[in-house]
């Protein structure tokens, strides 16, 4: 059963140097994401990944097409959608002077819920930092904390925008484990990434975007089968002497 249905979704902006013309940041894309999937959106910078996510999250208006999350129309009921999604944005700054516990409690309150903040911090291995301020966390800890914030409403769908950009290999692997663990409990995860290894090892299906369009969408395995270049020809062995010998025979002369 698909939990996200996107049809002909588009976002257009006036051109910066000629506002009478518009360009499409997202040019009418369609895809559907199954419940319980980890779905990756790949693409170079400016391909429209973040814009697509922000439309799904109700952050920016949908100009054309439609998007449904768990049967709710994002365009007409953004606030209902926000109740059931968790979002990690690319920038993850928070109010100064609040501890992790206080921030998590705040986020839960924004959903009109109460949560066990310590339990949530345990999930992302930050219990010992409960009283710390986000400004004092390392890059990996910050990312894990922003995922903890995104989990404050126990969402059905988790959106992660480039979650591992700028992390060291250890922190990256650690975050993958976290995502896999959340997914194994049934959470649908949609993530954007530049990291091919991440897409290949983490995502069950991948959409590759370029210039606002989805140019390919499938499982990593199938994408490799269809689009990877032919394996190179076996390299030639031997040298010109072998050729000479092959043409003139091995028998001794004289």
């Amino acid at each position, binding site marked *: 059963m698909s939990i996200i249905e996107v049809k002909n979704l588009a976002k257009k902006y006036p051109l910066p140097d000629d506002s009478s013309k518009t360009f499409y940041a997202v040019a009418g894309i369609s895809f559907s994401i199954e419940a319980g999937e980890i779905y990756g959106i790949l693409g170079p910078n400016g391909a429209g990944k973040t814009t697509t996510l922000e439309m799904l999250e109700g952050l920016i208006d949908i100009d054309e097409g439609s998007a449904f999350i768990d049967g709710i129309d994002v365009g007409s009921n953004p606030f209902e959608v926000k109740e059931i999604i968790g979002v990690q944005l690319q920038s993850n700054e928070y109010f100064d*002077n609040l501890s992790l516990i206080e921030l998590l409690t705040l986020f839960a309150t*924004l959903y009109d819920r109460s949560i066990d903040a310590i339990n949530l911090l345990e999930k992302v291995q930050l219990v010992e930092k409960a009283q710390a301020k986000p400004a004092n966390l390392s890059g990996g800890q910050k990312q894990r904390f922003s995922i903890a914030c995104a989990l404050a409403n126990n969402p059905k769908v988790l959106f992660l925008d480039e979650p591992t950009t700028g992390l060291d290999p250890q922190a990256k692997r650690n975050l993958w484990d976290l995502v896999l663990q959340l997914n194994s409990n049934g959470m649908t995860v949609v993530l954007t990434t530049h990291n091919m290894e991440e897409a290949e090892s983490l995502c069950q299906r991948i959409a590759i975007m370029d210039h606002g369009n989805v140019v390919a969408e499938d499982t990593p395995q199938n994408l490799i089968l269809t689009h990877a270049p032919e394996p190179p020809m076996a390299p030639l062995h031997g040298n010109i002497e072998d050729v000479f010998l092959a043409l003139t025979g091995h028998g001794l002369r004289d």
Partner: protein
Amino acid sequence: MPTKTQLHLAKVFLKIFLRDRQSIFFSLFFPVIFMSVFSFANNGSQDPITIGVVDNSSNTLSQGFIESLNANPVFDVSLDNETALRSRLIEGDMTLVLILPDEFVEQAGGTELNLIVDAAQVQQLGLIVPLLEQTLISIEREFRNIEPMFSLAIEDVEARSQRYLDFLLPGLLAFTLMQLSIAGSGFNIEEYRRKGILKRLFVTPIKPKDFITSIVIARLVICLIQMSVLMAIAVFFLEVSIVGNFISLYLLIILGTVIFLCLGFCLGSIAKTQQAVMAVGNIVIFPQIFLSGVFYPIESMPALIQPIARVLPLSFIATGLREIANSGATLLEIIPSLIGIAVWFVIGFLLATRLFVWKEVAN
């Protein structure tokens, strides 16, 4: 009634403010230092006001008059001819020159005394002229030997005679309130937007209304506490007198806070960058500091500027607070200020709701 979410968010904003020791310190530091300086300046033997007197009649009455003037510790009198005194006035040696006419006698129409002042000293003048008039009246009474019947009335005038600090406190309250409110809405919103915090909040189901309500609640609490602290310091340590009703004072403080919060929201919506917020913020704040009668009365300003000065939002609030604190005016008596405040409230509210586009602000 505020919802649970709004109250929680308001509590968070309060907590953030309370943990920001620096901004608490500075929001109190300036007004307290300012008042203290003036209190020390006023507490010592006050510098006498140097006035020059030109005695054109030289009769017993005028000499007696000058003697009484000399006896008053407020004035330092020097006698000379008009030309000499004029040049000393221009040099700044003298605050003003009083010219007694040729015919300085008791007469039915009253005697007109000419007062020459230096326009550059205009701000002091607003404070001095009433003092001078008061002294003239008491001298006159002494001269005419008016009986103690009047001394009661004179006592009354004395009891209400203002120290500069009494005048200053309501102005400083209004000024501090403006700073706190504009910082609370305009500057903070810009910061939250720049850091992406607004965007993060907007992917939760929080409504713009909740966000704004909680900022307003938090800032009202902050302003009421800061104003109370300032008034307490002024009354208990600096012996400033507040004669009016505190409920009326607090009502004005609340209204003022709401007006400047609205203007702050406009600011945060119009100005998209940190530099722009600072620049536009200064355009809003600076003229009001100097024109709104915070430090000296609007009456002492050039006549051309007065009409503009009077309609600034800070003027209405400072004037209203001053009338209550200094003269014990009731709300009914300050209706002109209240009308001004109401008009600014409507303008601020309409502008803020018109300009504050949540999605733009969040992005």
